[in-house]
């Protein structure tokens, strides 16, 4: 503290306190130079320094103890889903994870805290200046470098032999191309696959909820299974035999079935493409392809949870809000001889997100 006071009094501004008339030095804003160092308690009192030393050592010791505790917890705390700890406000968690996290965290934190406390209390805190040189080279150095470079250029004949220069530049320009070329087999050409779904006339509609765990069995849907206001996620029967193509097929061909009162449906085509008020729409959002899922029964609005594009399922799947630009495509449906809902035809347009070739 006393250091600061001295500094103030010896500043170059002297003020006549009685009259408030000042005498100002040559440049009142000149740099007075580094302020005097203020010693810390640990610098002047060995007892305080000893205490610091003990705290640092204590933290290092704590770190070592926590490290050993970590290894003990690794073997001793059971790691299974039934051994959990539960405390406010973090909720339930694995006891093993909790014990390992706490011990590892303390081991690391105490190690760091010890080192920092050591630096702050016992190592020097006298700030010293170090000179900083301009990064730019001296003119002599620059001249020498340029001379060396020009000698090198002259030795190579780079300027005198333009044939070599041009062919080299040309060859170097094309050399990286194979790095792009060789990536061709990363995937197939799109062809028309982006336009195709698994839906063709007569394809049975499978209720997603009925598909077995192994994905090979599922049940069709009869019109009488669906009450007005019911929404069902459904797939083409082809997914049951798609094997490792199941996800690819789902991401193109997933549909929604919803039953409405025909009087609520605003479009005659939509009624015609449906069956007794049951209509089928692509489940894949026309924005960036998330499955649409949130259905408002009263308004017939279907919301995509990803970016809130909202479609009116009673009006040709028209977009009424959000970033999607196109209606959800409707799948024409009917019932087959067994009374199950089937596709009357495929989609009349590509489903899912827009793409350049879509048109």
């Amino acid at each position: 503290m006393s250091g600061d006071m001295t500094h103030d009094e010896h500043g170059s501004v002297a003020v006549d306190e009685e009259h408030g008339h000042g005498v100002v030095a040559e440049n009142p804003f000149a740099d007075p130079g580094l302020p005097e160092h203020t010693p810390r308690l640990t610098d002047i009192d060995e007892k305080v320094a000893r205490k610091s030393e003990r705290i640092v050592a204590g933290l290092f010791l704590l770190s070592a103890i926590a490290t050993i505790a970590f290894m003990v917890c690794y073997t001793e705390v059971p790691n299974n889903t039934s051994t959990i700890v539960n405390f406010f406000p973090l909720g339930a968690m694995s006891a093993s994870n909790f014990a390992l996290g706490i011990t590892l965290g303390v081991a690391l934190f105490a190690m760091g805290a010890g080192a920092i406390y050591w630096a702050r209390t016992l190592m020097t805190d006298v700030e010293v200046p170090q000179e900083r040189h301009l990064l730019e080279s001296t003119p002599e150095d620059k001249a020498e470098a340029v001379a060396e470079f020009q000698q090198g250029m002259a030795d190579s004949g780079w300027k005198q032999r333009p044939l070599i220069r041009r062919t080299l530049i040309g060859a170097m320009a094309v050399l990286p191309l194979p790095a792009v070329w060789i990536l061709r087999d990363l995937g197939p050409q799109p062809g028309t696959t982006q336009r195709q779904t698994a839906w063709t006339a007569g394809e049975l509609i499978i209720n997603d909820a009925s598909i077995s765990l192994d994905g090979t069995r599922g049940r069709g849907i009869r019109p009488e299974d669906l009450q007005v206001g019911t929404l069902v996620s459904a797939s083409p029967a082809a997914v049951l035999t798609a094997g490792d193509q199941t996800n690819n097929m789902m991401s193109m061909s997933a549909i929604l079935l919803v039953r409405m009162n025909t009087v609520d449906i605003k479009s005659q085509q939509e009624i015609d493409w449906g069956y007794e008020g049951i209509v089928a729409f692509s489940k894949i959002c026309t924005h960036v392809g998330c499955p649409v899922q949130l259905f408002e029964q009263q308004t017939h609005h279907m919301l995509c949870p990803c970016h809130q594009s909202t479609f009116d399922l009673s009006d040709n799947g028209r977009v009424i809000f959000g970033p999607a630009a196109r209606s959800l495509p409707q799948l024409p449906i009917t019932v087959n001889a067994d009374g199950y809902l089937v596709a009357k035809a495929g989609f009349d347009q590509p489903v899912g997100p827009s793409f350049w070739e879509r048109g």
Partner: protein
Amino acid sequence: MSTSTTNEEIVPTTLGGKASEYLDQRLGIAGAAKKNLRKIFPDHWSFMLGEICLYSFIVLLLSGIFLTLFFTPSMGEVTYNGSYTPLDGIRMSEAYASTLNISFDVRGGLLMRQIHHWAALVFVMAIMVHMLRIFFTGAFRKPRELNWLIGFTLFVMALAEGFCGYSLPDDLLSGTGLRILQGMILAIPIVGTYISYFLFGGLFPGTDIVPRLFTVHILLVPGLILGLITAHLILVFYQKHTQWAGPGRTNQNVVGLPLMPVYMAKAGGFFFVVFGFTALLGGLVTINPIWLYGPYVPTQITAGSQPDFYIGFFEGALRMMPNIEWNFWGHTLSPNILVPFAIVPGILFGGLAMYPFLEAWITGDRREHHILDRPRNMPTRTAIGVAGIVFYGVGWINGGNDLIAPHFNLSVEAITWVDRVAIFVAPAFAFWLTRRICFGLQRRDRDKVLHGRESGIITRSPEGQFSEIHTPLPQGDLHTLTSHEVHHPLTLTDVTDANGVPAPNLRLAKLRARMTRWYFGERVEKVSEEEYREAISSGHH
């Protein structure tokens, strides 16, 4: 050059000394050690932000190596029979199954997964805050523009690395994130469909994307990040750290404490603090509980699903954009996707990368700067930065519109519309307000220089007037508060030569002059010596 120095040769006796001698005879390390062991670094809390980036990256490397030992980067299908019974018998990819295995059956596996995820969030967040510090203090000015670009590249790579890692477990959330990415790639004109097919090996999702992203995530991007971090640090070391203005601190020196021992202990210790912090988070706070989401199925989704925070801006922009799409000549162009996916981030990130060069062009300043600016002393730069933060913030908030809506009982549509307006209005308002605040703060500094600090002592004059005695500032403070530069706008003179021929590049010069008026047209001048003398002698301090 004299040979007598050999007589004074040090003969090492300790083990460390002998090892150093061994190395020196082969590598000549003494020269580097002599210069660098006691290298001075300035001290300020904001200088540790970059350290957090470095240390969280090391934590990511360490925890990531552990995770690769148990993770199977494959989309091959398996039936789960592990210890997490709610998913028993469910078909899933090997990637998802091995992530469940790491979470439930490998001891310490969940801890490492959670440390890895938390450290990733800390990494990106620390980079953002570190960059803002550099921006607002003008530390990007000459000679550090190149290091700004390296840092910017690191930022972009950190975002990419985070997204790749997030996508690897092949859970419902990560698969949905990939689906959105694929939908956006499809919107790229001409080549979008091809890029998507090459990236995913055909139709989405295919079976290639997880192993491919795995290579990108554990080899390609971290390798590049590691290389760039090394370059970044070498430049910090070589160009020496910037410092704040203050007594004894000039553009030609660096004032602080020596690397050995102070910063070795402080920085080394801080590594353990950051690591310990992420370990405690990993042990105590559940993050990304992929077992609750289930495996990725393209037809399923959960409402209210959110990406990691650093994707929120892009997500919000995608949600905000009105549904514009054009069809022409048998092709589809989707501004509703391209604007938030490419154009807005392009402007935001391009502007961020190029800002140092833009400002240098406007100010015409070619000098080296090692003293930091206080943000208030560069009001327009500070206002641009704050406007950028607000722009980013509005997009980010809109990324959570579906969570805000139920919490505050608002409609998603209303929030989106407010944000559609706010994305333009709020940054403009923030720009104006920030400049006002900066000018206000500068005037307060000016006042302090002229009249000193309020002492809290009230006196009453014989006439009955009350006034507070002001204590003049110590000279160190006077120097600190007046050491900044006040830039002035350019005025064009001699726009034509004697023959009436316009000067070359006149339009560019006019633009530059206009930019300097925008930057520096309104300003608070520094206290001149005359003003100061006047204030002192009039006694009103």
